[in-house]
Structures are given as structure tokens and as C-alpha cells.
């Protein structure tokens, strides 16, 4: 057993924390209020090589491990949920399918500019009628000579307005159901491809969430990612890894809730003493700190398993369901500790609640995580 981070992991966490405190925290409230996409911050992150953090240098990445990436996700999300989701979706959903399953040419052509931060990564899986049941994909891709012809639509897709290409899933063999799904890279400027960012969301206002529409969109046959009809297996693998990073986001938001609550509790005086002297408040803070530590250990364990090429699917699901539900609870408690001020936009904790809730939904709902865990238990 060794609970120490490596020197590289520590330095990456410390540098990203410092960057997030200096460059992101001061902008987080404004990003939430205006819904402005944090493009400037993303550009600064690109300068620091964060946009390709866990990928090899030959593709423009920084060559760090997955644990380092998750630590960076935690620190960025602690500062701003919208920036955190932008980053997480870029790497876990945008870059990862190409890195894991793409050909050498695809990695050179598509992964490299993503790692350099020249554009954002985006992955289109969810459809209006295929959410948790992503095997129920309706979008189709039919071969016509040397081209795929794509028809259909996607919903809730992160980052697509800032992407140069989106990896999407489509039925390539209608007779085979979920075993007939493939992943295909689609340039966002392809004729017949429309991206609409019109959602009004509960939180994560600065994150770009879009609908995709495909009307006879033609892309070259070689844009297929990996083998034909293997899309379902591929995205299960992609989501397994992404769940660890979502857990890291949840820990970041919960830590922000605790930081704000502790500071406020020490400053707020009622009945002649700071409310942090009241046991009822102390117990809330103690429970928050304990749950955060447990969730952090769990995502680090799942990331460690992944870095060491061991099975991690069950642990990733455990980390995600525990951390995301914990983050919502922590944000609720943070509001309670702030009293009426917590309900006001002047303080950040109501934002933490709105941002945290998504983590129980995206990349597999809490219910789906429990299904995954139960399957691993042998149910």
C-alpha cells in the first residue's frame, strides 16, 4: 500500500490548483450568470498543455497518467463547474474514443489538434429516444460508395459548438440493434450538419450543450472509428473511464462547498458566537469532510486501477455514484450552513448545487451506475 501521490501527480495537482485559484475562481460567478463559454480560460489551459494531459507526446499530449488528469479535473471543477465539464467532456468523451480506437492516421489528424487545444472534443451518443438505453440509437449511417450518409439527431451534446469534428454513434446495421452501432468522426462544417445550442439549463451555464441534426450528411468511409459495428462496446469503455473523471468533478464541487461553508461558519456570528462553535454546524462540516475524503479515495483507486491496466469498471461506477450523490448533499448542506445567504446568488453555494446535480445524470445516471455495480456483483 502507498497512499502517496507521485511527485509528478503532486506537482500537476498543485500547479493546476494554483492556476484555478488565480485564473478561474475570479470568473466563475460571472460565467454562471452570463452563460458565457469560458474560451479564454480554455486557451490558457491549452498553453499549459492541459488539453492533452493524459495522452502521449507524439500526439501533442503531455504524457501524464489518468490519475493526474483526474486530479486536474477535481481542481478545475472546484473553481468552476462549467469549466470543469468543458474540460472533462473534451478529454473523456472527445479525445478518448479517437485515442483508444482510432487509426494512426486519425490520431495524427484529429487527436493532435485536440491535445494542442486548437479545438474542443465532443462526443455525440445521447438521442431524444436513446439516453440510458444508448443501445436504442436511431441515427443511421449508410454506406454509399466511399461515403457514409448520416441521418438523425442527437441531444445534450457537450462542446459541439466549439468542435471542428464530433465523434457520433450511428446504426450501421439496422438488423443487429446495439450490435449494429458504429462510431464515426463528422466534421462540424459538413453539409447538412446543424448544431444548435439553445438549451436553458439548471446549472453549468457556461458549458456548451447542444443538439445535433444530420440531414444526409456525407463523410468519407475512413472516418469510421475502429471496426464497424463495434460502437456499443467502444462507448461502454469510453464511459467507464469518463465516470472516474465525473467522480473527480463531484469531489471538486463538494470541496468547494466545504471550503465556502467552513469559511462562512467561522465568520458568521449568531447568539454571540461564530456558528462554527455550534455542534450542529460542526457535525455537518465533519460529515462533509469525511464524505469528500472517501469519495476522493474511491476515484483515486479507480484511476490507479486504470493506470495499472487492471479492471476498473465496477470501481469507476462506485466512485461516480457515491461522489456525485455526495456532492449534491454537500451543496445542500452548504446552503443550509449559509442560511438565507446561501439561497442568494451573492454566495456561490446555490451554484454548486445546480452544477452538482448534473453529475448524477451525465455519463450514466446513478440508477445506471447501480445497475453496473449489481452486474459486477453477479446479479
Amino acid at each position, binding site marked *: 500500500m502507498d497512499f502517496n501521490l507521485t511527485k*509528478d501527480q503532486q*506537482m*500537476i495537482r498543485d500547479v493546476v490548483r494554483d492556476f484555478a485559484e488565480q485564473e478561474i475562481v475570479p470568473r466563475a460567478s460571472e460565467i454562471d450568470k452570463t452563460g458565457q463559454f469560458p474560451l479564454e480560460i480554455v486557451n490558457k489551459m491549452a498553453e499549459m498543455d492541459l488539453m492533452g494531459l493524459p495522452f502521449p507526446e507524439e500526439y501533442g499530449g*503531455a504524457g*501524464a497518467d489518468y490519475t493526474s488528469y483526474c486530479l486536474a479535473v477535481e481542481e478545475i471543477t472546484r473553481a468552476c463547474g462549467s469549466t470543469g465539464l468543458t474540460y472533462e467532456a473534451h478529454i473523456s468523451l472527445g479525445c478518448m474514443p479517437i485515442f483508444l480506437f482510432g487509426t494512426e492516421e486519425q490520431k495524427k489528424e484529429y487527436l493532435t489538434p485536440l491535445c494542442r487545444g486548437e479545438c474542443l472534443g465532443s462526443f455525440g451518443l445521447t438521442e431524444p429516444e436513446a439516453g440510458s438505453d444508448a443501445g436504442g440509437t436511431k441515427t443511421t449511417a449508410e454506406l454509399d460508395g466511399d461515403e457514409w450518409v448520416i441521418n438523425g439527431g442527437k441531444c445534450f451534446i457537450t462542446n459541439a459548438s466549439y468542435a471542428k469534428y464530433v465523434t457520433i454513434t450511428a446504426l450501421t446495421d439496422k438488423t443487429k440493434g446495439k450490435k449494429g452501432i458504429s462510431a464515426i468522426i463528422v466534421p462540424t462544417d459538413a453539409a447538412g450538419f446543424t448544431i444548435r445550442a439553445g438549451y436553458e439549463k439548471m446549472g453549468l451555464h457556461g458549458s456548451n450543450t447542444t443538439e445535433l441534426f444530420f440531414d444526409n450528411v456525407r463523410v468519407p468511409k475512413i472516418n469510421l472509428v475502429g471496426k464497424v459495428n463495434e460502437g456499443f462496446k467502444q462507448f461502454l469503455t469510453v464511459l467507464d473511464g469518463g465516470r472516474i473523471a465525473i467522480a473527480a468533478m463531484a469531489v471538486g464541487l463538494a470541496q468547494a462547498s466545504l471550503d465556502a461553508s467552513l469559511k462562512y461558519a467561522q465568520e458568521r456570528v449568531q447568539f454571540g458566537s461564530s456558528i462554527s462553535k455550534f455542534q450542529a454546524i460542526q457535525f455537518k462540516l465533519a460529515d462533509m469532510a469525511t464524505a469528500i475524503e472517501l469519495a476522493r479515495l474511491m476515484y483515486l483507486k479507480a484511476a490507479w486501477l486504470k493506470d495499472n491496466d487492471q479492471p476498473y469498471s465496477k470501481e469507476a461506477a462506485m466512485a461516480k455514484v457515491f461522489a456525485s450523490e455526495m456532492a449534491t448533499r454537500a451543496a445542500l448542506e452548504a446552503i443550509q450552513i449559509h442560511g438565507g445567504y446561501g439561497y442568494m446568488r451573492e454566495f456561490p453555494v446555490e451554484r454548486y448545487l445546480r452544477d452538482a446535480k448534473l453529475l448524477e445524470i451525465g455519463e450514466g445516471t446513478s440508477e445506471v451506475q447501480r445497475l453496473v455495480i449489481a452486474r459486477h456483483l453477479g446479479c
Partner: protein
Amino acid sequence: MKIAVLVKQTFDTEAKIILDVNGKISSSGVSLIMNPYDEFAVEEGLRIKEKEGGEVTVISVGGQQAQDALRQALAMGADKAVLVDQGEAELDEYATATILAKAISDLEYDLILGGFRAIDDGSAQVAGRVAEILNIPVVNVVTGLEIEGGKAVATRETESGSEVLEVPLPAVITAQKGLNEPRYPSMKGIMKAKKKPMDKKTLADLGLDDGKISAKVKALSFSLPEPRKAGKVIPGEAAEAARELARLLREEAKVI
């Protein structure tokens, strides 16, 4: 341009200072950082290198944990590091400067940069002493630096304004806040740092021993500052309260 930068590892600015059972400052559980003024020095060294070409070597005296501060400088872009482990020897400013000067005299150098002081002991002596031992000029507390034709043109703030000084190289320049905005180490920089050379030396490697560096100043004891007493609010009408304030300043605080 060969640039040497003096780097010290210090307690984090937020660290809570406690004394151990022997009455010494306890470092257990304290997070350690690169002295913030040294970060300005490293950044300045890197900028000069980027403009003029050359090499930046970072040098520290300290235990093995001081490697972390050096590695941070390497991650920012320094080319190599030298760590002198003083072992059991007690250090004061004289001892530290003697060791640093010896380590530097083994290198080629055109310019030596350092923070103007360290945030832990705050003595602001070491860089000046190094210059004295090496018999080269020093400009302290610098907020602007230009290197041109074998000379350093340095700007420093004074009580009445600022002054610009010119010194021939090699020289020692110490950095004050405002000299520059240190960069964040890039992720690639962090990953590369561990592959860069880190020369670890002992006092014996430098031809020094405890006798040659024996500290001239010894700390006899440490004590924590008195906790600050709570302030006092004087109620009442302004004129009356002012009278009361004047009385308290005179009779209780005895400052007027």
C-alpha cells in the same frame, strides 16, 4: 548567457507554525514551496535565456526534500539543478552563502539571480553575501532588469522614487515583487523535469566541512508571537468616543 538562480525551499505562506517538544520549529505536515521571491528570480532567468540564449542552473542548499523546489524550477524551464545537502550542519546566512558561493564557483556564470529575501527567516542577506564572497557587484530589490552588452541595467524602488543602476557582469541581482509575473509550469514541463540533470552534492564534494562553514549565529530559543488581543470598540457619540479613545491611548496603551 549562463545564469545561476539561487532557490530556497520555504514553508507555505499559509503554514501554521508550531514548536516541537524540543522548542524547535516543527516541519511535520507542513507543505513546502519555492520561496516566492525566488520564483521571480527563476522567471527572470528564463526570460533572459529565451531572449539571449544560454542556460539556467538552479541551486539550492537544503535537505533532500528541497529537490521539490528545484524540480518546480526545472518544470518552469530551467535546464539543470544543483542541490547541496548540508547534512547535519547548522546553517546561518554566512554558512549558506559560503556553500552557495563554493557551488557557484564550480560553474560558469555570467549572472546570478535570487529572491531579495526568503519568506521564512526574512534576513535578506544570503545573495549579498554570495556576491561579496565571489567579489562581484550586487543590486538588491530589483523590479526591472535589462541585460545589454555585458552589463546589467537594473531598476530598484527607493523610498523617494526609483533608481536605475548599471553594473558589469557577472553580477548578483535580487528580485522584488513586480519584476515579472512568474509562469505556471506547463504539464509537459512537469513531465520533463524529472529527466533533467539534478546534481546532488555533499559538503565534502565541495571541499567544505563543518569547520569551514560553522555558523556564526546560533538561535538559542524560539517562541511564538503573543496572540493578538481582541480589539476594543468604543461606543457613544463621536466627540465623547474620541475623548475616551485619547484617554485610553494615553493611559492604557501609553502610546501618546
